[in-house]
């Protein structure tokens, strides 16, 4: 079974405390939504989990092995894969080559053609198989997001972290991404989905983590988290203190209503 344990992780940048004692665990193929106001520490947490940052203190254990402080490529090979808030496709490489990079990194003795078939399957699943020989830079923004998801399937990690997978995505593509998450989750992968799209988060996730000022202020079933006063405070309070916010506070309530009622 997949086991991830994040134990009391702190991360500070100079005087700014980005993560303030984050603790949570994942057991098996959980489907977790990670939400929180802007600047709450969501991306910092992602970067700690995948090795881009070394935590100031605290530990991260993956499947019985301590992984905090390992370089990103080691963590990727051990089973944490991620996408990026701003897509990072290998733009001047073809779609197929993009998919071959993680496959070849993972299998040092394999040959590229051993993975052509698998790569084409992945592209078919993502409905972009006709673009296999195109340069990634010629893909639309949404298609580049799909490409990132495809690369993850080739890396085949236990835990998949998606950073804003729905931002700026056409509804049709959104459905493809939904299907991807549900299907891959069924196959046994755990997901952590970071999103400001409350509809999607409440529709998809079975567990919700709410981060605010680098702390987890709520962790549980979406329906229960929705009623947590601390969560409502975090979202409603933000508008008064910090002026303009990216998600209007009303949107949260709206998304929750829809997700729960309809």
């Amino acid at each position: 079974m997949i086991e991830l344990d994040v134990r009391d992780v702190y991360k500070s940048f100079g005087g700014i405390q980005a993560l303030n004692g984050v603790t949570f665990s994942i057991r098996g193929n959980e489907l977790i939504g990670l939400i929180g106001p802007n600047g709450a520490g969501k991306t910092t947490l992602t970067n700690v989990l995948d090795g881009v940052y070394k935590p100031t203190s605290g530990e991260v254990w993956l499947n019985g092995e301590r992984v905090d402080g390992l370089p990103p490529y080691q963590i990727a090979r051990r089973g944490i894969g991620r996408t990026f808030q701003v897509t990072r496709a290998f733009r001047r490489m073809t779609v197929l080559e993009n998919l071959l990079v993680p496959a070849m990194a993972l299998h040092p003795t394999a040959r590229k053609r051993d993975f052509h078939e698998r790569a084409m399957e992945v592209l078919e699943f993502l409905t972009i198989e006709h673009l296999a020989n195109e340069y990634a830079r010629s893909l639309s923004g949404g298609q580049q997001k799909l490409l990132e998801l495809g690369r993850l399937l080739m890396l085949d990690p236990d835990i998949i972290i998606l950073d804003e997978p729905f931002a700026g995505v056409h509804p049709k593509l959104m459905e493809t991404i939904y299907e991807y998450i549900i299907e891959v989750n069924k196959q046994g992968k755990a997901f952590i989905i970071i999103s400001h799209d409350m509809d999607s988060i409440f529709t998809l996730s079975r567990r919700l983590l709410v981060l605010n000022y680098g702390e987890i202020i709520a962790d549980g079933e979406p329906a229960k988290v929705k009623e947590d006063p601390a969560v409502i405070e975090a979202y409603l309070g933000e508008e008064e203190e910090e002026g303009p916010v990216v998600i209007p506070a009303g949107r949260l309530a709206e998304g929750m209503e829809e997700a729960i009622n309809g």
Partner: protein
Amino acid sequence: MKRVPLQWILAAGLFILALAAPVLLKDQQYWLFIATQAYFWAMLASSWALLAGYAGQFSFGHIAFMAIASYASGILGRDLGWSPVSGVVAGTLVAGVVGLVIGYLCLRLRRTYLALFTIAFAEIFRLVVNAEIDLTGGPLGLYMDYLLDTTSYIPYYYLMLGLLLASLAFMYWLASSRFGLFFRSIREDEVAAAAMGVHIVRYKILAFVVTSMIAGLAGAVDHHFIGFIAPSELIIGRMSLVIAMAVIGGIESLIGAALGAIFIHFSLEWLQQIPVPASMMPKLIAMQPMLEKIGLGVGERGIMTYAWRMVAFGLLLMLTLRFWRNGLIHPIIDRLFRQRVRKETVAKRVQAAEVASPTTFGGTEGR
């Protein structure tokens, strides 16, 4: 009957021309010498294309690596009596080791900073070579033993051609293997490459080591052919020439960069004195004072261009960078050899568009 495709006839023609050059240039030893030098530059430009075009490490240190191997070999021969062959091997290894150190130091430097760092490294190396007269001969240069026991250019010509083809074949294999895939992923996005499991430290350093060794090998062999090396060969202008060759040929194409180097080296030699018909010579001589005012001159057979030929290539470089980012030669190769693939892709795209258009915007109900 199946027709042999044009591109293979052209490629075979070029190869046969290269093989037959010593016979064709039997009475023009000078041009055979120029051809040998052109292959030396082609090794530098193509290995730099691998480092900068594939791996994205825009280094200005390539000429320095070339010279490190040459000086190492020359000094080992002079002071320890090593044969040129063992000197070339040792020099190539030294270039590889220095490449490893520089690659390691450059790990965290990207683009502009890498360029500045490697310029500094190359200039410091040149100044040290200039100053350490006891070791390197200083500005007066270092005499090196001849590699082969012959006065003919022909064996050197074939040796350099062989080294060029072997290094191109090796680099082509490298670029089309997993290494090329990793090099390019690092060039495109280091963060994403690492997140996909690519050991970026290893492959960045590997790119430096391999390309430094090829530059070193070319340099050591070439200077054991010329018999002399001096720090004036290490000036930044020579590095710029390597870059111009690769960029004009095609920075992301090993063959393109090699052909670019050969083309430019020959052109530069030819442009030294642009020949004019003998009947025009008196007129030209009459114009000599005027020509000298604008930096040109009159030679025995035509117009001497001096620095102007460099200006011409500087302009060509600028125009290439501005208008033909893939270089001038690479697109031709690409067109000749990839046409079939491209047609296939275009056909697929058309097909995909036809399939996709009725449904793309149809699946939004219920959202």
